């Protein structure tokens, strides 16, 4: 269900009742810095008003005395409206995923968005295990190889059972197949809708472990791990094609904001941008001779240390010790072992310039102080040499929401002809920094793992704002700085980094060979940089419009009549307002493409002066743009045909019917058995579907199969599963509307443990005999062909038997 936001309807009603156009009578200043500063001074008071308002709403929301709302953060928009995010608490403990958002205006009026408020919490007493025990469980699982410079932080929370994690998979380094990741798979079933839990926030940052920021949720009664969240948002990219290019993206930069240090040297430290210190720098000590101090604000550019062979030294340094305040040589990076030298400084200049441009874009166009609106300073780390089997930092970039830092790889090109050049180009920098805009606070981000539509949304929003930053940066000298020009640059990301071949195409994302242009149920399983396709395309259509000529790059079969775009400036204002005031992630991964659509409609309907006359047109443009990417229905159009897999059963040990996690639509089924997939077609009298084996997510970006496309589709619509253990996928396509399809995925387990060629309850006997033996007894006893048998086999077996022959 998409979230519902306050609609234009009510606002119109108000105007009619008053018989006047109040907005026109007292035009709010478009953007007046002095007024904004004044409004911002009232933020603390407005946070208090929001809290009082929410506390008073408790009964109406179905909450009791034990519940409360605690303001967590706030920002004030240029119209003077303060948006306050409040956390829900129960007996003083944060309710995981429970929050409210309040809009407080200058007159003290408060409007509350309470979609994420959690009701029905019935907990008493205290957790059975201690916080320290929970911490030990998390650290034991994390198993850091190097030193943990930062101690884990533990917080007792109320955890909704519906957010229990699920199955994780990984690529087997030997066979290249995708296999079950037993260590990171969650097999816990809290015994109540809400349980006491400990949130353990861990962080490792060293040469042995690389950078990991894993948040664990530990059941307060059983000590079981309920969920693991990865807070690092990776810019994961496919292996690019060959090309050529220059290494110095920005060319000559006339003005570079640096600092003159007490010892007379200069550093890449921009004290003109950023009003609060960067949190990561707190791990470093002040340096008296130069006067560098971690408590001082200002954006900084650092580099990661390497030796002459290009191996990581595990060290990080501010670009420093420069006596001339002239930086870089504009050449591609080659000087391993001297990343802070003149050659390495070129990447630093790129990053410094790009961060300033991005920072100024949000300040000039939206009146925002930095990415988080609080002025928290950004630290960029360039020339990352890390090359791990599981993470290619060289050709990558990522945003770290806890640290408010962005890391950019040195690039492996041209040594690796398929690699990238330095990752510090403006559009990559702007992409990463936009993650700071869309993360609501330092310990929550839009969930960025595959398996969540929210992941695709986070990546698409970063791509969209990157496009806007680039467009704004290239405005004419005489153009106003508070608007985004209508210029149409190519809508793409990473052409320079990819030495001529973009990493992603926003206008027609499928041009990259991986992304999809339109939504389908199951798209969430794609890598978020490819599930982002429909959102990228919708936002492109919103700005630039869609063609009605089939075959053109900006034509969509989902909106054959085409549409007129609202232009860059208004599109950006709609999306900005949507993501800062309506689409505020709650850390659960629950937000969907439809939710973003609803948020953009709400934002369009609330655009301030001087845009309010276009509200109706703009909101319809949002509807049409999203419909063109198969998200929601077009303006005034009948409901679109949808193909949807329905949960086959419920109450399983392995929680497959989780509403939005990775394994929604996923079933556990037997190999070599005839099963009856269940799919529904809605909004169409013709509910017939065509079945096919496999689907869009059958291969990942490394061409590794993520699922088996096997078995036989029978004439009656049943599916005889293949004789192969692992994920298998099937696709159902509407016969009435072939644009509409859904991909369902099942984990196939070999139930026939006694090898009598029949799947029956007697096959539980070998599982019982082999359960938790410390060594291999009989491979066939493990339904997932693991070398031992444990509760995972028990769960898989019971769930698969039941899904195949449901109890009626």
């Amino acid at each position, binding site marked *: 269900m998409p979230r519902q936001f306050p609609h234009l309807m009510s606002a119109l009603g108000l105007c009619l009742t008053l018989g006047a156009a109040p907005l026109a009578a007292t035009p709010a200043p478009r953007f007046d810095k002095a007024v904004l500063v004044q409004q911002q001074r009232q933020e603390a008071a407005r946070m208090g008003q929001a809290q009082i308002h929410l506390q008073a709403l408790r009964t109406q929301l179905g909450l009791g005395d034990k519940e409360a709302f605690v303001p967590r953060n706030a920002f004030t928009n240029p119209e003077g409206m303060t948006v306050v995010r409040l956390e829900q608490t129960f007996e003083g403990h944060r309710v995981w995923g429970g929050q409210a958002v309040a809009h407080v205006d200058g007159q003290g009026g408060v409007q509350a968005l309470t979609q994420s408020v959690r009701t029905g919490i019935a907990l008493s007493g205290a957790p*059975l295990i201690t916080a320290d025990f929970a911490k*030990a*469980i998390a650290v*034991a*699982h994390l*198993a850091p190889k190097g030193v943990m410079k930062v101690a884990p932080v533990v917080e007792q929370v109320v955890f909704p059972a519906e957010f229990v994690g699920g199955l994780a998979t990984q690529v087997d380094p030997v066979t290249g197949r995708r296999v079950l990741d037993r260590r990171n798979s969650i*097999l*816990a*079933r*809290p*015994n109540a809708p809400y349980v006491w839990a400990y949130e353990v926030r861990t962080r490792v940052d060293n040469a042995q472990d690389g950078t990991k920021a894993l948040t664990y949720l530990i059941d307060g*009664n*059983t*000590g*079981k791990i309920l969920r693991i969240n990865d807070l690092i948002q990776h810019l994961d990219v496919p292996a690019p094609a060959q090309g050529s290019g220059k290494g110095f993206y920005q060319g000559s930069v006339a003005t570079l904001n640096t600092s003159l240090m007490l010892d007379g040297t200069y550093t890449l430290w921009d004290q003109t941008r950023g009003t609060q210190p960067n949190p990561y720098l707190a791990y470093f000590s002040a340096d008296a001779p130069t006067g560098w101090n971690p408590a001082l604000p200002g954006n900084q550019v650092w580099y990661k240390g390497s030796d002459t062979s290009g191996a990581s030294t595990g060290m990080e340094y501010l670009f420093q010790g420069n006596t001339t305040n002239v930086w870089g040589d504009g050449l591609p990076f080659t000087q391993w072992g001297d990343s802070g030298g003149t050659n390495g400084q070129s990447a630093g200049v790129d990053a410094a310039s790009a961060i300033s441009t991005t920072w100024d874009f949000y300040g000039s166009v939206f009146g925002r102080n930095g990415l988080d609106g609080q002025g928290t300073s950004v630290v960029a780390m360039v020339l990352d040499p890390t090359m791990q089997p599981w993470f290619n930092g060289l050709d990558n970039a990522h945003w770290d929401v806890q640290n408010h830092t962005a890391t950019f790889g040195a690039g492996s090109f041209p040594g690796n002809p398929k690699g990238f050049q330095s990752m510090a180009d403006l559009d990559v920098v702007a992409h990463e920094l936009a993650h700071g805009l869309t993360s609501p606070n330092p310990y929550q981000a839009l969930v960025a793992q595959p398996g969540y539509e929210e992941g695709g949304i986070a990546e698409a929003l970063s791509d969209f704002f990157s496009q806007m930053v680039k467009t704004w940066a290239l405005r004419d000298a005489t153009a106003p700085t508070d608007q985004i020009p209508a210029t149409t640059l190519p809508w793409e990301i990473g052409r320079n980094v990819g030495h001529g071949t973009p990493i992603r195409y926003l206008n027609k994302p499928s041009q990259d060979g991986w992304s999809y242009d339109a939504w389908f149920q199951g798209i969430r399983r794609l890598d978020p940089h490819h599930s982002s396709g429909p959102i990228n395309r919708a936002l492109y259509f919103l700005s630039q419009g869609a063609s009605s000529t089939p075959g053109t790059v900006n034509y969509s079969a989902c909106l054959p009549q085409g549409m007129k775009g609202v232009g860059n400036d208004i599109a950006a204002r709609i999306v900005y307002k949507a993501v800062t005031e309506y689409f505020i992630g709650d850390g659960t991964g629950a937000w969907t493409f439809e939710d973003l659509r609803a948020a953009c409609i709400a934002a369009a309907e609330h655009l301030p002066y001087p845009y309010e006359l276009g509200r109706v047109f703009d909101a319809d443009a949002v509807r049409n743009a999203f419909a063109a990417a198969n998200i929601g229905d077009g303006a005034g159009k009948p409901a679109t045909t949808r193909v949807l897999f329905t949960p086959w*059963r*419920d*109450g*399983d*040990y392995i929680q497959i019917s989780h509403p939005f996690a990775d394994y929604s639509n996923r079933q556990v089924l037997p190999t070599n058995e005839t099963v009856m997939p269940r799919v529904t077609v809605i909004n169409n009298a013709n509910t017939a579907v065509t079945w096919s084996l496999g689907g869009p997510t059958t291969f990942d970006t490394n061409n590794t199969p993520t699922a088996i496309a096997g078995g036989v589709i029978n004439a009656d619509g049943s599916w005889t599963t293949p004789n192969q253990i692992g994920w298998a996928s099937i696709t159902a396509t509407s016969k009435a509307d072939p644009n509409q399809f859904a991909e369902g995925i099942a984990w196939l387990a070999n139930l026939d443990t*006694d090898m009598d060629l*029949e799947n*029956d*309850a*007697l*096959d*539980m*006997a*070998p*599982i*019982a*005999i*082999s*359960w*938790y*033996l410390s*060594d*291999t*007894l009989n491979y066939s006893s493990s339904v997932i062909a693991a070398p031992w048998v444990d*509760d995972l086999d*028990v*769960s898989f*077996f*019971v769930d698969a*038997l*039941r899904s*195949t*022959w*449901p*109890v*009626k």
Partner: protein
Amino acid sequence: MRMLSYLFSTLVLAVALACGGGSNPAPTATAPSTPASGLTYTDPTGTGWRLVKDASSTPTRVVLNLVGPAGLKTRGAGFNLKADATVRFGTFMDPSVPPISTGWPIKDTGVFELRNTDPRDPFTGDPVPLDPQDPILLSGAVKKGNLLTVGIFQKDRRATAKDSAQPLCQIAIEFDASAKLNAKDTIALSIVKAKYVPEDLGAFNGGVTTWEMLAKGHPVDMTIAVGSLHAN
């Protein structure tokens, strides 16, 4: 193989034709049949493995206990039972066994220890409280052809084997009004396959090749006596 089956079916056809060729007399007048409204189960005789009626049975729902021979200790049992399509296998709701929404066609009578007897944290090795939702080897299904398959097994070898001469688990057979059975109609029941897990699973006494388990750790075939089921 193919030839044999062809000949066999021809033979059947010939017999059928012979019957059809003669004059087919009207059914002889018998006492008018009474529509049935319930089921009657008569326990089998003998002291081996058997399905015996439980006192909780009702006129329309026969609850059967699986009982084994005295003196035999086991760690679990399972069987496949085929019934005429004129009856339905019933289910049991047990709030302690997931999934709680629809239940299972088998009921745990509490004899077997189904859960982990000594739960420990997989990473630290420290004892932890038992997960109330600890997955257990209790499940069942009704497959095509009204074939019930059920099983109940102790997964933890540290739990002792249990005496079989007591109700080890229950199944249920329900009267189906839509089947239009008449009183005294017989409903065929037959055990197709049945196994139990023995007390002696063998010990770990060395490497894989010397495990006694390789010889002893197998389910054992058994015969289950089934009583007679009639409509009434």
